[in-house]
């Protein structure tokens, strides 16, 4: 961008909120560089940034921690809207089990405050510590704890959102049960910055369990752990999560990591029931080692040039694992066996192809599942598409998008047509 154009663009935003990036690549979205970074410090400035972008005819892509920015490039010139200046806990009532925080608050900061009061927000998507609350809401990203505790959609009680055309909506509230009006909170959670920019969120919390332990079962080949993983998923015992990772960190082979929480006696009994009748040896991990292990498992298949997310019915685990292995040879794989969601990553994009990914998507869709690309080189994304046809919600979604962002300012060309 020429210095003149940059100055003109800067003039469209509130004073001191805009900068042309020094390292534009660090802010790239789907391989495309932004024209600059706008960092509003208030809801009012956020509105002005959106209005300024609309006047200047550029798109706006909201980013929090930037860990899960999607692999689709915006359809035209754009600026990144960073929520880094919208940070901090606004209201925390431990006895109500709720907290309200600004969008740019990191989950790590939030966790520190909650831990002091013996509480937590049970979410564990990849790169958890670097995510922001706003990013968690915008992506709706669930980790392995999602089946037992609920996904972000189930934890978000209220939101302040600024729509593409600058309306400030205060949706939901800070109470546990609320059916006053249509549930626009659900619509916004997971809408990936295409309907509005999340300015703050209220989420429900849980007491930290007395015990939080891992049961680790190792296998030489990941395939031999699949029957055990399925046994866990259909057992009357409800683990907090169960993740099958391959290759196992530092050891090769594979490992099934079952997370058990609750009173000490209950965790012991659950572990005994899960292992009853099976000949395998399990390693029991507790305390900080267990926490580190859960984080390692969550991030296990989330690094590399190509990262994909495969979903299917949980009982199709074996088929999905083998289909993924064919399309992405030697991939790091982390399977959330309770949800039926498998993340796979390869370091070198040359090890796969558009054809292999398209075939994988077809196979998954035949199983009632889907394939989404989380990270991939732009040529691959252009050829394969980030989401399958089933992922796009069609005319209703497109129509909702028009009603929230009539000027098509937000994340143009991404996520939902």
């Amino acid at each position, binding site marked *: 961008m020429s210095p003149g154009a940059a100055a003109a663009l800067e003039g469209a935003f509130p004073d001191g909120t805009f900068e042309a990036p020094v390292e534009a690549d660090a802010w790239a979205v789907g391989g495309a560089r932004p024209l600059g970074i706008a960092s509003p410090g208030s809801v009012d400035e956020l509105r002005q940034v959106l209005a300024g972008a609309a006047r200047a005819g550029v798109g706006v892509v909201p980013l929090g921690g930037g860990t899960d920015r999607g692999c689709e490039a915006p359809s035209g010139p754009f600026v990144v809207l960073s929520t880094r200046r919208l940070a901090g806990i606004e209201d925390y009532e431990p006895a109500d089990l709720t907290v309200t925080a600004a969008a740019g608050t990191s989950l790590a900061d939030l966790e520190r405050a909650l831990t002091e009061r013996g509480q937590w927000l049970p979410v564990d998507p990849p790169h958890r510590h670097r995510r922001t609350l706003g990013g968690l809401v915008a992506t709706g990203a669930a980790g392995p704890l999602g089946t037992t505790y609920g996904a972000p959609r189930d934890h978000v009680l209220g939101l302040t959102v600024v729509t593409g055309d600058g309306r400030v909506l205060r949706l939901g509230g800070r109470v*546990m*049960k609320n059916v006053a*009006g249509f549930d626009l909170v659900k*619509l916004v959670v997971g809408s990936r910055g295409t309907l509005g920019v999340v300015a703050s969120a209220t989420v429900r919390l849980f007491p930290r369990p007395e015990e939080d332990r891992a049961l680790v079962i190792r296998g030489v080949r990941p395939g031999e752990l699949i029957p055990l993983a399925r046994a866990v998923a259909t057992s009357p015992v409800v683990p907090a999560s169960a993740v099958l990772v391959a290759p196992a960190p530092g050891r090769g082979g594979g490992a099934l990591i079952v997370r058990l929480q609750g009173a000490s*006696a*209950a965790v012991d009994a659950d572990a005994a029931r899960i292992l009853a009748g099976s000949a395998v040896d399990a390693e029991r991990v507790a305390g900080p080692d267990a926490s580190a292990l859960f984080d390692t498992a969550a991030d296990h298949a989330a690094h590399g040039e190509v990262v994909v*997310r495969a979903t299917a019915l949980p009982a199709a685990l074996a088929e999905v694992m083998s289909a993924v292995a064919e399309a992405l040879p030697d991939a790091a794989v982390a399977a959330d066996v309770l949800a039926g969601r498998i993340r796979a990553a390869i370091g070198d994009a040359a090890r796969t192809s558009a054809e292999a990914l398209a075939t994988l998507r077809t196979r998954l869709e035949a199983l009632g599942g889907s394939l989404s690309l989380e990270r991939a080189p732009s040529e691959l994304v252009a050829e394969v598409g980030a989401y399958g046809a089933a992922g796009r919600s069609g005319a209703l979604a497109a129509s909702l998008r028009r009603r929230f962002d009539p000027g098509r300012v937000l994340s143009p060309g991404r*996520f939902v047509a």
Partner: protein
Amino acid sequence: MSPPLPDSLLRRLRELVGAEHVITDPDRLLVYEADGLTAYRWPPRGVVLPATTEEVSAVMRLLHGSGIPVVPRGAGTGLSGGALAPEGAVVVGTARMTRILSLDPANRVARMQPGVVNTRLSEAARPHGLYYAPDPSSQTACTIGGNVAENSGGPHCLKYGVTSRYITGLTVVLGDGEVVELGGAGHDPESGYDLVGLFVGSEGCFGLAVEIEVRLLPLPEGVRTLLAIFDTLEDAGRAVTAVVGAGLLPAALEIMDQSSIRAVEASVFAAGYPTDAGAALVVEFDGTEAGLEADAERAEGLCMEHGAREVRRARNAAEREALWKGRKKAFGAFGRLAPDLIVQDATVPRTRLPDVLARILEIGASHRLRVANVFHAGDGNLHPKLLFDRRDADELARVEAASREIMEACVAAGGTITGEHGVGVDKRKYMRLVYGTAEIEAMRAAKEVFDPAGLVNPGKVLPDPEAEATR
């Protein structure tokens, strides 16, 4: 009174669903005049009872083409008037859509038609060691379709969450008859808008859910139920705070106040609660057997520390049923105390419960009304019951005034106007207490996306624009 439906239309409706499933006889329509909100009676112009997705689609398309509004209806147990038929509307009932289409234990999902009764689903799942978690108090009558429309709660939401957590996919018929698939187990929920989440709780205003896919949970290995008797409501409230503060996560935490205890004990549902008690608290834990005893003991200790007069423990399923009986039947028990009853529904942040409850009693007294409270203490969801006689116009007016003041008090405490019963007809007038124009217009926009013609359950949820214009 709306004019009768044209003969040509009736003939086509009868062809579509069978003559006996199109109701126009005034005597047979009586049942459909009201739902659980009995203060209102709105006779529909007719009732159609389709049996299949294709029939629903054809019926909706036909009525849409004639410009006739439709009202989806399940069992009619709703408490906010959501199934009442506005002027000129035809009810599309799900009474014949009662098939469980599939029950898949390996994936813990079931798919069914909307007319399946809530408890029947859990009964069907039980042989597989599974159950359906949301358990509204009307669960032996209410349908899964109605639960989807209302995003129903129940006493076990504290630990397990509300209906929206358990709906994985929907097939819906829109106003013009179009059949749309939303979500589905196996589908990636992070690959598009959460239209299932948006549809759940839309109170029949977006369309009619004709197939519902739900997630089932394994039956807990064990359950422990305690009943703690307190001299005062305040003590019971403090005990709840202590239990939650101790890091325990009960499956349910329910309180009944003195008026409710007395009503239950004077009724056929008498459960043996002492009638001089200020409050009764039900605490329930479920999960792995080995951990339950310790949880129950800690809760019992905390109740005693906070002034419980006694704590009873259910030793078996029959005793557990007995402890719950008073709570679950409280609604019915009021029947003998007054001809009419309004069950209010609001949620406040849990820590605000004691002052809000005191304020509700004050409001009742100032309007010379009998008020009783039963509530989900764990999640701050209150159900004040106002007793009255609707033939007494003055008393009815006082009930209206007290209801509004209760809503205002709950909103002022940081709460909301409905936690699980919905807005329907009854609470449209309170929507402005919690939302401004921007939020209401955004909700209206969502409604228009699903129902551009405005013919699906019109006149519900959103405030009446005409009434607002004349304010």
